[in-house]
């Protein structure tokens, strides 16, 4: 919802804190999650994540959430899907080039970042391109798996391309491990469910919450 999306950016600092607390809690539960199996958790967590983040941030379930590096303004709502914005086409008043009645997602992002504790240093880090294979999967679980794996210093995935991206975008890998993930993905995380929705981002104004 457009209204809630703008609300969360205005209260970016609060949501940053909430996210950090939630993240450390989930990491603490990693041993339990492993016993249950990330495979089994994937589907129910993804559904909860989609509902809450969809409501609060107009989340598009890219599966590699970078909200804490984008001032709590979801970059997938940018019609150009920029992960490192804003582009040079911002209209006077900070409005979007492609959808003139919408505030530029990235103008919002920079404002949100200024309200956050680590926002400004994080928004300056170059983010890698979106990995379309991960669309629709739970980003929360991915972050937890990545960070827990790091703590247990396990050897992560042997996927060469993932390591290459993590190397090329080292800064992003350090602060947003889900944006350049190298931990092994459970098969359930690579479902096809979101592939169908990816094109709707550009064409459906309802996705932006601007039409009733």
């Amino acid at each position: 919802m457009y209204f809630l999306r703008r609300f969360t950016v205005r209260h970016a600092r609060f949501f940053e804190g909430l996210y950090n607390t939630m993240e450390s809690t989930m990491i603490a539960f990693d041993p339990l999650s492993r016993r249950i199996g990330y495979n089994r958790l994937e589907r129910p967590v993804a559904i909860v994540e989609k509902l809450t983040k969809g409501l609060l941030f107009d989340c598009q379930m890219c599966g590699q959430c970078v909200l804490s590096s984008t001032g709590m303004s979801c970059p997938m709502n940018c019609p150009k899907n920029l992960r490192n914005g804003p582009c040079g086409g911002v209209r006077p008043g900070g409005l979007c080039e492609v959808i003139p009645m919408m505030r530029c997602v990235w103008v919002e992002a920079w404002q949100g970042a200024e309200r956050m504790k680590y926002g400004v240093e994080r928004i300056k880090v170059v983010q890698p391109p979106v990995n379309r294979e991960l669309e629709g999967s739970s980003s929360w679980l991915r972050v937890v798996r990545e960070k827990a794996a790091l703590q247990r210093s396990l050897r992560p995935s042997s996927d060469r391309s993932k390591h290459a991206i993590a190397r090329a975008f080292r800064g992003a890998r350090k602060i947003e491990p889900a944006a350049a993930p190298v931990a092994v993905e459970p098969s359930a995380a690579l479902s096809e469910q979101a592939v169908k929705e990816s094109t709707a981002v550009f064409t459906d104004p309802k996705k932006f919450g601007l039409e009733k």
Partner: protein
Amino acid sequence: MTPIQTPEPFDPIIDVPPKAPEGHKSASKLERVLRAGEFAVTAELNPPDSSNPLDVLEAAQPLREVTDAINATDASGANCHMSSIGICSVLSRVGLSSVFQISCRDRNRIAIQGDVLGAASMGVSNVLCLTGDGVGVGDQPGARPVFDFDCMSLLRTLRTMRDESTFLSGRKLSTPPQIFLGAAANPCIEPLEHRADRLAKKVNAGADFIQTNYIFDIELFRRYMERVRDMGLDDKVFILAGVGPLASAKSARWMRSNVPGIHIPDPVIERLEKAEKPGEEGKKLCIELLQQIREIRGVKGAHIMAYRREHLVGSIIEESGIMKERTTGKQPAAQQPDLKQN
């Protein structure tokens, strides 16, 4: 006017692309001029709606003697024209240096990485990484926008290809592309307070040079450059300021409302409106802007975008006097081959 470009015809079938000199990232003439501390000039070519290579050479004719590199636009404004890689290929065969513009709007990471290798194999040594305008403003608004990369991730990917000699997939390249990496900047567009931060991010992503969008508001640009100097960015990246001659008040208004990312202040439009010959006034304005830009510390060159008014570029450069102190790259005009016969 003394010619700037030294013709070194390059045929990819016979020649191997020239190697980068010591301490340089590419064999680019533009890089050589900039590193020598000279004021560089680039200009945008009007891409033909044709498959005839001679049309490219004709469009390049007014620019080749007065610029260090010619920008080949990649369907700018989302309007379909001859591709930038095609234009660069034709230009490099007659020894003209070009800037290969890549927009993220039309191609995904597979296509772009391959195109850069292809362009480099034909002797193209400057690449400009752009996000691209939305498809809605162009001649085919129904097209599918791609935006797989954005300009930052594109820059970082190309830097990885050049410096680490790998694709983004981690696969090795046997010969990495030696390219001088460019990016755009739009100093006069909101959010003004973050535009310099964004430039820093582009430098961090891999930009070696910057070509800005049109500057019509010199005060805004001065403030931007002040911020850029405070951040020490002018030492890390070569900034070429963008200018262009406006044709009339009407076309200025049209540009302002229809072309994304162009800021033209009202006094500029009023000045054109009051002028008897708006075309002449537009040219005069462009020359004045160039002279003012030349004086701003940290600006290393100018980028001239004279869409459909390319014939004016030579006289704009000459009358502005920005090239007076140039020492390199000059060559007698008589030695220039006639492009039409090539």
